[in-house]
């Protein structure tokens, strides 16, 4: 069973093409990150997925139904961007209200526990800090026990600690075999929390795979050390090296095999100082893909 199928979906706002013809299939049970810079078309894709925007062309199926129907049947829970919470209600009242809109909701206490809101339940929802409000919005999204959970940049406005506890909450919800799609422009989040990373840029999918696969596409690691004015000749001939950059006293080698390169570097007799080896990170891969 596929949770999400986009077939040839496109969407323009005026002369801006937000999403170019997009094909995407997400299987049920996966946790997928939709990764991309601002303006990549992530939010537009999510809005179309939720029936909040209508595609210009193409077809979208959510758990085998049209987006509107899937939402109406309570199959989908969503945490949208930039929503402030409704004024005048406590956290418990808001979450309990939304819960009851769904046919088979989670128990209220369980929702509050997963979202880490048990101690805030009697506080007014519109008088919370940014991170706390995000947790309420997460609670709203999961309260109906939806089979598909969609999170649009869920950790924006959160500090580091809130972020960690948020992702712990999300993983505990995902453990129930549910499908989760989250949009983010934080690369580490995609790396650490998703089974699969779909990279979007300029309204198109430009990369799709596990975080490791995306990283591998960036090609190799870097070795950085202080050269102190000694000649840089020959560095380019070391095994594995694909590129040499000299920045003042520092040399930066791009390599496909950092271990071999470093070994050869020490054997070459150069007095290398301040050696630093960095694996390819998702950031490089991401910049590569979205450039």
């Amino acid at each position, binding site marked *: 069973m596929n949770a999400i199928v986009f077939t040839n979906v496109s969407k323009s706002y005026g002369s801006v093409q937000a999403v170019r013809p997009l094909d995407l299939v997400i299987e049920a049970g996966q946790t997928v990150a939709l990764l991309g810079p601002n303006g990549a078309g992530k939010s537009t894709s999510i*809005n179309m997925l*939720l*029936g*909040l*925007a*209508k595609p210009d062309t193409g077809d979208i199926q959510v758990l085998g139904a049209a987006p509107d129907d899937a*939402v*109406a*049947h*309570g199959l*989908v*829970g*969503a945490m*949208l*961007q*930039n*929503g*402030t*919470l*409704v*004024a*005048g*209600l406590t956290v418990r*009242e808001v979450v309990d*209200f*939304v819960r*009851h*809109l*769904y*046919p088979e909701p989670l128990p209220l206490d369980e929702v509050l526990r997963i979202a880490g809101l048990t101690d805030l339940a009697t506080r007014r929802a519109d008088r919370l800090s940014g991170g706390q409000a995000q947790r309420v*919005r997460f609670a*709203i999204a999961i309260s*109906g026990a939806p089979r598909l959970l*969609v999170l649009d940049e869920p950790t924006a406005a959160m500090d580091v600690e809130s972020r960690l506890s948020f992702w712990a909450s999300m993983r505990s919800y995902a453990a129930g075999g549910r499908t989760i799609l989250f949009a983010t422009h934080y690369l580490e989040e995609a790396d650490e929390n998703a089974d699969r990373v779909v990279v979007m840029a300029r309204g198109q999918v430009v990369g799709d795979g596990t975080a490791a696969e995306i990283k591998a596409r960036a090609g190799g690691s870097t070795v950085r050390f202080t050269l102190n004015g000694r000649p840089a000749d020959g560095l380019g001939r070391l095994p594995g090296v694909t590129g040499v950059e000299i920045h003042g006293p520092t040399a930066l080698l791009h390599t496909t095999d950092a271990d071999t390169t470093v070994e050869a570097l020490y054997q070459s007799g150069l007095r290398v100082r301040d050696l630093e080896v960095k694996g390819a990170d998702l950031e490089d891969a991401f910049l590569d893909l979205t450039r």
Partner: protein
Amino acid sequence: MLRYLRIELLRMSRDPRFVFFTAAVPVGFYLLWSNIGGVHGEIEASTGLTPQVHLMVSMAAFGAIVAAVASTGSRLAGELQSGWLRQLRATPLSNRAVICTKILASMILALTPIVLVSITAALAQDVRLSPAEWAGMIALMWLATFPFAALGTLIGSLVSPDAAQPVSVGTHLGLSMLGGLFVPISQMPHALQNVAHWLPSNRFGEVGWDIVGGHAPSAAAGLILAGWAAALGGCAIAAYRRATVTA
């Protein structure tokens, strides 16, 4: 949907502006003007009512319009902008249920000044009506708040929160004045009287004045109010749909 209505009413009751606009303003105006109006207890030829009774209906109607148009308009505009209604759109609660609940909640809000002004008139100005007249006036005036509740949701769906306040204040003041709720339309220029007859606000007041005067409201009043109800209700639903779905 009942739960939604319940939390909407709960939210309104916790809003201090609610108390001020829906309770204090019409009751205050009634107390102020009923003491400086015509001779106490004397029936005026132009209205067939004592000033105290006439003003009771006028201020009940004015308060109801303020509650339905102004409170609903700015609240809805704020909720649309804040993303709360967009969030609801991503739940099984249908657009239709949201807008119907908004209109119903707005009507319940508008009932408050009708009841409060009536109680004030009875207590402070010794206004006496038969139980049937009290019940008839309150029930029919309450039903007649529908077009104003729809108008409030329409304004809320169309304009930004910043604009909602002035637009709705202008609308409810304009409707109240042109509808003869402050100054009876018999004292207005002829051209304005012709306009007033077509306004829901004038017909809204007329329903109340007829009942407290001891006769049934006219069919014309019912038809004009129903016409406004249908037109504004339809527009409100269409505008709300447009406001939550970007084409």
